[in-house]
């Protein structure tokens, strides 16, 4: 059964889209990530224009982040104060990112930039996760990591108290991290949990218990900001596509949570690392191998 998407201006199979939403839902349920890193490339792969994919995935991540956030809020695992600081930077970063996206689109290099950014970050984060999961599966001693003891965050000026995270660190760090993640969100069409979670643990020294809830809290606002900007400047948010993806991911998330609770955490992380590296390798191939067609055609707006 096909449905015509009003903004993407193409007809897609309903079950394919629900399935894609479902797969990302399973991932977010299993691993606690938004799954945008997989969803955006998949949508592009089935022929949805890249700009529509990026903007629409941002819209759908709002929903998956809210449903996760509700659960974490109930358990009081959210550091709102830290969230606001991250958000301040994130708003600036994501707004700049949308402008950067538009500029790169005009230059015609947006596809390559998206791919390079994806390959770099997915590659680095995937390898880090794989290494750590492997160490812990093989029962090797963990690298010493003590919450609250991060040199850079403590050396910088403008120190602020974060009672929930039991931290006394420079406000510049969360703002800068938020900005960087915001920039990535609008260029890559992902929630940014991928960058944010490791950054919160390793650069800010936040306790692991509040990391996911706090990152979801700020992702809601960042993706909402990106959705708004894209709706105004590029008109590329496809509500119908977002609604279909959403319906699939809500159902998928339930299965994901159940699978996730049955697998040991280390294996789960290893699995996620393999998936992330897989996407990175697939995209790297696209960058370095000779394309099937060196020419590409697009509609000129002006």
């Amino acid at each position, binding site marked *: 059964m096909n449905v*015509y998407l009003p*903004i993407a201006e193409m*007809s897609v199979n309903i079950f394919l889209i629900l399935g894609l939403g479902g797969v990302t839902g399973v991932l977010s349920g299993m691993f606690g990530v938004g799954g945008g890193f997989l969803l955006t490339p998949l949508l592009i792969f089935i022929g949805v224009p890249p700009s529509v994919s990026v903007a629409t995935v941002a819209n759908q991540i709002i929903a998956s982040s809210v449903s*996760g956030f509700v659960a974490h809020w109930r358990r009081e695992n959210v550091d709102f104060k830290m969230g606001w600081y991250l958000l301040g930077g994130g708003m600036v970063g994501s707004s700049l990112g949308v402008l950067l996206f538009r500029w790169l689109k005009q230059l015609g290099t947006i596809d390559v930039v998206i791919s390079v950014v994806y390959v770099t970050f997915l590659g680095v984060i995937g390898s880090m996760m794989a290494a750590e999961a492997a160490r812990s599966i093989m029962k090797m001693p963990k690298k010493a990591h003590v919450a609250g003891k991060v040199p850079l965050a403590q050396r910088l000026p403008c120190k602020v108290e974060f009672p929930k995270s039991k931290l006394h660190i420079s406000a510049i760090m969360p703002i800068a991290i938020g900005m960087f993640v915001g920039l990535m969100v609008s260029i890559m069409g992902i929630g940014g949990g991928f960058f944010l979670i490791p950054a919160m643990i390793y650069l800010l020294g936040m306790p692991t218990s509040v990391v996911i809830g706090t990152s979801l809290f700020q992702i*809601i606002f960042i993706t909402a900001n990106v959705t708004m900007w894209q709706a105004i400047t590029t008109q590329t*948010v496809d509500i119908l596509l977002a*609604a279909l993806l959403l319906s699939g991911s809500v159902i998928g998330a339930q299965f994901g949570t159940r699978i996730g609770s049955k697998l040991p955490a280390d294996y789960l992380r290893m699995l996620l690392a393999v998936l992330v590296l897989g996407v990175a390798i697939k995209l790297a191939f696209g960058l370095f191998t000779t394309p099937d*067609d060196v020419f*590409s*055609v697009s509609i000129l707006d002006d």
Partner: protein
Amino acid sequence: MIRWLAVLWLVTFFSAPALAAMPVVADVSNYHIEIDSRFNGTRIFLFGARNGNGDIVVIVRGPNQNYIVRKKESMAGIWLNRSRMKFYNVPSFYAVASSKPLEDIMQTGLFERLGIGQKTLLQPPPNIRLKNSFEEFESAYLRFQKGQKLYSSAPEQVNFMAQTLFKTVIEFPDNIPPGTYTAEIYLVSDGEVVGMQSTPISVVKGGLDAVLFQFAHQYPAMYGITAIFLALFAGWGAGRLFGKYN
């Protein structure tokens, strides 16, 4: 069924003596294509009659658009867009059907004057340096449009029934841009156009899709807020609904 009705209609329609003087008369099965959420491409039947001998060329053009064609080159191992060419006012849809291959019907000079055939659609850029690479960009563009099923050429797909009646089918894929299309029907005899008729076909978004598209373009801020609230509500609802079980 449609075919028989059309034949019946044609026979009664063209038997009117006043039309006998016109060299070519044609009509389409549908003047109006509505793109709604069930739209999955469509086809239009084109029927007509010729008065006298000659070949029939049917051209359907979509609304004009501007295109940019980019070429990737390897830079330090990475494939990057390095050169580009812009083409202005090019039909976004272009279907040609004819009773014989175009080359057998008339000479290229006439094609160019009438804009018949894919090779007449793009203008080489004025820049001398770019002119040399025009052909490869042109063929890349045509290849792209053909891949999108927006450009098609069907020589020998206009069929004659009896001596005067002819018919053909024009396929519209699901990705056709909305706008005003024109179907042009040429009767060509001895390398000269002896008759021509054109018929507009309008392609519009309808139903929910039209509403959403207009909403997105006319009230972008409201649209953005709606999209955000929809997602917030759906996420919150899902969290509440399933939250108890996790």
